[in-house]
């Protein structure tokens, strides 16, 4: 965190770079009784970019003025702040940043570095993904590249689920708990593919009983072996992404630790016209080392889902996007319709809703209290 602050300060001191940013008003209203504002306020984001030959500085700082009852006041948050060193075939980026892996949409089994904020899913990714302090090195050779990522401090997903009396225990900040991984990407005859490995902690929480008879929320270690690809065929792009999660319960005998599992996504994206695209995905998760009676209460041996991302746009005027995920087992689903109206160059109005629905204990049913409608007006400069 101190390193991030230093980079930020250095960037700001280097005035003369490019200043960009936005001013945004936002109103998010809960779709669950008593229907209060979950977020109401305005945000100024200032981005400063400065290039000095082979070194780039970038900082993105949010000044958030919140007006809703809980969380009222001004806060300052560095969304990103990093230095990038460029050499002939190597880029090194150090600081707070977003690191995304994978090629499919919304569900990315290989993407276990940058956490999610499930309580704040809206039109903009920086609202629901949480940047991490990391060092990332990209080495390019031929039509291939190797990416090395190191994340010293673990940051979990924000799920919004509260378990009464349970205490969240995060991994201690020490070198043994640094997370690291690598990703090799290449291309062969029009097929882009990557192979990845990530050694870190589960971004999702696991609830386990502690020695005192209470409950703790933990983030167990895991290793993720992943692969992804994309291939274009006329107006279609075929995409796939899968990962093998090697958890701490390798034999599947501990009911409080996830078993090893496979998680994969197969996607078909269709550009019907320059205005209309549709992306249909099939998702499957297979728990391995299954032992009846020794499994966690909510674990399924095989769970399947489908997702659809549909976008229709009148470039420069308006855009309608619908993101949806449906779980076959419980019939629970997630819907995110967003209507964007471009009022003028650089001025956008977003109107949408985040809907989680399903039985009480289903993956999306558990998040239903986070359902909300939102209106945002954004002026970019």
């Amino acid at each position: 965190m101190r390193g991030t602050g230093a980079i930020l300060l250095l960037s700001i001191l280097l005035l003369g770079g490019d200043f960009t940013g936005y001013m945004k008003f936002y109103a998010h209203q809960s779709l669950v009784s008593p229907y209060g504002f979950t977020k109401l306020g305005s945000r100024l984001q200032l981005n400063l970019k400065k290039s000095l030959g082979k070194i780039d500085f970038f900082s993105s700082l949010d000044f958030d003025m919140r007006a809703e009852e809980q969380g009222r006041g001004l806060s300052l948050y560095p969304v990103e702040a990093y230095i990038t060193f460029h050499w002939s075939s190597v880029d090194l980026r150090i600081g707070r940043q977003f690191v995304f892996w994978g090629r499919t949409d919304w569900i990315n089994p290989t993407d276990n570095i940058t956490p999610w904020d499930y309580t704040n899913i809206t039109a903009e990714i920086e609202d629901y993904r949480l940047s991490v302090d990391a060092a990332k090195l990209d080495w390019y050779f031929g039509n291939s590249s190797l990416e090395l990522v190191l994340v010293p401090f673990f940051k979990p997903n924000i799920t919004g689920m509260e378990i009464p009396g349970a205490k969240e225990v995060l991994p201690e900040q020490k070198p043994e708990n640094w997370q690291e991984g690598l990703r090799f990407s290449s291309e062969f005859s029009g097929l882009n593919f990557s192979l990845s490995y990530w050694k870190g902690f589960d971004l999702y929480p696991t609830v386990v009983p502690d020695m005192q008879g209470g409950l703790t929320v933990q983030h167990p270690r895991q290793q993720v072996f992943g692969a992804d690809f994309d291939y274009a065929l006329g107006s279609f792009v075929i995409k796939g992404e899968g990962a093998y999660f090697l958890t701490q319960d390798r034999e599947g005998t501990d009911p409080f630790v996830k078993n090893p599992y496979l998680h994969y996504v197969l996607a078909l994206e269709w550009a019907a016209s320059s205005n209309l695209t549709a992306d249909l995905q099939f998702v499957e998760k297979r728990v391995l080392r299954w032992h009846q009676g020794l499994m966690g209460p909510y674990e399924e041996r095989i769970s399947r889902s489908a997702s659809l991302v549909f976008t229709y746009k009148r470039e420069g005027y308006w855009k309608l996007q619908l993101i949806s995920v449906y779980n076959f087992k419980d019939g629970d689903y997630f819907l995110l319709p967003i209507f964007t109206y471009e009022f003028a160059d650089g001025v956008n109005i977003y109107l949408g809703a985040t809907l989680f629905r399903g039985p009480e204990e289903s993956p999306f049913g558990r998040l239903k209290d986070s359902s909300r409608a939102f209106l945002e007006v954004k002026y970019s400069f």
Partner: protein
Amino acid sequence: MRIKALWLLLSLPLVAAMPSGREVMERVVNKATWKDMTADVLMRISARGRERIRKIKMFSRKRTAEENDTLMRFTYPPDVAGTAFLLIEHSKGEDERYLYLPALRRIRRIASSGKGGAFMGSDFSYYDIGKPKLGDWKYRNLGMVELNGRKVYKVEALPANKKVEKETKYGKIIHYVDPQKWSVVRAEYYDRMGKLWKVLEVRSFKEIKGIWFQTDLVMNNIQSGSQSEMKFENLKVDQGLSPSLFTKRSLRR
């Protein structure tokens, strides 16, 4: 009889001097001998009583005689600034298209939505801004006509097959070619029903290294009433652009 024979004899060189439609278009299409090109592109789109501006920094290079690589960086408006598009053409197999959206911090491979799709929501289609394939059209020279005080060739282009017609959405194109510059100065695009759809007017040219470049193009959509203007500024050729510029790595920078 003798007079008629003499007339025929005199008119022969004139007939021979009139190139075919295909020959005219070959001169137009194959005149570009640049290796690479950079330009600042300003797009002005006027429709429904509103005007929208898009600014792009464009880089292009010829990888082979038939394959170009093009990188476009959007610089305006601010909400799309930083967006970058990379097109890698392949004469055999699918072209590669990648889009970097800074808001998503991700490079996405995107599918081709067809050559008839609107380029950046303008009245120009992807086909209009690309290099036409001569084999896709059957050309016919309709003779010399006068346009804005200049003699130009009027060339009719009909789709060579149904696929081209379907992809481009054009049933016919009439090109007006200036034989001094070997450049299209006006074009009329007809839809598949044979109705006039769009009219292209080239307002200005710039000569660089003996090649005339169209630097101000206006496309009027007759059917919708909208208009798009594409202006090229700071046009430079043969700068020795590095091939590394046309990679996914450079999309993010």
